[in-house]
């Protein structure tokens, strides 16, 4: 019998440290699969963030660098400028990319760095135990917004960084997808592939924002977490191509 669901070559066959129902695992696979399909594994360099995906190099089977919290796109800029023949991408959470690293994000995008950026939006800080992220929804309870995020009282509004980036001239592609259902996973895969192809074709900065579940911090079952993305997150973060 022919096996049709195989482990991508760019993904190692190891146990995962992610919580059950976590989006990171699926997204690691989608990235690996896209790299396989484009046949770029041997020239790909990934940048892992500081966040739950800090040890992404334990899963990906290609060259990977760590970066300080929020600085992935600066590290990627250094690598890509020195080795334009390689395919360089960052993989970052919302705290990493949209809070502490927002200057690096904005300026890498604005310089039109020929990079691919995978932005994992799980509306919270996972690794540090569930604090408010810039993307935390209004009213969402986190350990630093125990009564729910209240924009009026100084917590600020959910930051729509993809929309912000889309107005910059250096940015060639921005899209937002959700991994809350099979259709969304497929769409995510297509966006990621496009973001890599853009880089191969030297088109500039591409970013894919992925709404990704974090059942542990959201204190939901994996299924309910997916529902919450569809019922709540998507309202604040509409899906689709934002710029192309």
């Amino acid at each position: 019998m022919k096996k049709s669901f195989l482990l991508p070559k760019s993904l190692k066959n190891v146990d995962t440290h992610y919580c059950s129902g976590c989006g990171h695992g699926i997204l690691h696979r989608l990235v690996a699969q896209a790299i396989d399909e484009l046949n770029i594994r041997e020239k790909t360099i990934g940048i892992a963030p500081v966040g739950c995906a800090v040890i992404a190099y334990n899963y990906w089977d290609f060259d990977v660098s760590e970066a300080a919290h929020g600085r992935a796109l600066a590290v990627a800029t250094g690598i890509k400028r020195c080795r334009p023949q390689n395919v360089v991408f960052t993989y970052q959470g919302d705290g990493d990319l949209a809070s502490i690293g927002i200057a690096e994000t904005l300026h890498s995008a604005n310089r039109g760095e020929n990079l691919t950026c995978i932005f994992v939006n799980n509306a919270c800080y996972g690794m540090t135990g569930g604090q408010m992220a810039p993307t935390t929804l209004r009213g969402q309870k986190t350990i630093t917004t125990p009564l729910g995020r209240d924009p009026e009282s100084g917590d600020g509004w959910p930051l729509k960084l993809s929309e912000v980036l889309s107005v910059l001239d250096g940015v060639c592609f921005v899209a937002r997808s959700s991994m809350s259902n099979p259709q969304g996973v497929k769409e995510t895969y297509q966006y990621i592939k496009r973001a890599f192809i853009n880089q191969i074709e030297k088109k500039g900065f591409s970013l894919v924002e992925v709404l990704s579940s974090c059942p542990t911090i959201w204190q939901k079952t994996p299924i309910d977490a997916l529902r919450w993305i569809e019922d709540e997150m998507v309202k604040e973060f509409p899906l689709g191509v934002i710029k192309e």
Partner: protein
Amino acid sequence: MEKNKTKKNKVLMAGNEAMAEAAIRAGCGFYAGYPITPQNELIAYMAKKMKPRNRVFVQAESELAAINMVFGASAAGVRAMTSSSSPGISLKQEGISYLAGASLPAVIINVMRGGPGLGSIESSQSDYFQATRGGGHGDYFTLTLAPWSVDEAARLVMLAFDLADYYRNPTLILADAIIGQMMEPVELILRKEFKKKIPKKNWALTGAKGRSPNIIRSFFLKEGLLETYNEYLRKKWNNIRKNEQRFSTYKTDKNKYLIVAYGSQARIVREAVDILRKENIKVGLFRPISLWPYPEKGLKRLAKGVKKVVVVEQSLGQMVEDVKLALPGKEVVFLGKAGGGIPQAKEIINLIKRNR
């Protein structure tokens, strides 16, 4: 023949430009910086000269971004440098710690200005502690070299790239505003002062073609892993302490007093030494070139038999601690000014005379 050649190669340059040119000659392939006085000539020089040579120049959005770009370039196996002045160097410290944590080479130039805070743009030596004690978080050191002339600044930058690559460790040039701004003749030839063979960077990220993946990391979560890495660092520090102490001396024969100073301050001390020697007062200069590792072996040797050791700094007293550590029991007198104040030859002379 050789002599003529070096003469011909002498050009008048400001310290900042000479350091930039030296970096280019040493094969610096990547530079990122952010404007700050008194090192602006350096970034401007790199902006002008890197691109035509197919090297990378980036004006970063901040010092944070610049040092992390350098991290990336270094991870890609390229000789990389950034420069700044005191407040900007403070911002780079997290990145420097990551470089040390990931065993990545890089050259960082600090053209010091006065502090704390925004301080002033006048010359100062008040970042000595930050430079020689790691500066960022964690157990690590950066090799630190302090030039006292424009020519030496250029030479030390070339040496810094070799040291950084050999030890896989960030290396700092600790210059001050006077060295950065003043103009002097420089010999612009690449002198191979570092004789050891620098290993190939087979750890660099180039794409996992025909080999297993390379990983650049400073994160060691599994119990025992970080301790092992720290022990590897300890060996490295000991090795550096043993092999890389550098200093020079001036008129130290039969001296009764030894003055210790580095960078631009050592030039003023030299002036004072000349005057004092003319008056038959036996005094000499000990000038550390490597501030980390501190040249304690040389200092111990030269301080043997002297009556008093005088330390002069453009700070309220930082290097003096290393002198005291190296010379237990010895009487050490300190003269220091900060915030743009510079101990003058006259004050040094008076101090020596008062201490006779």
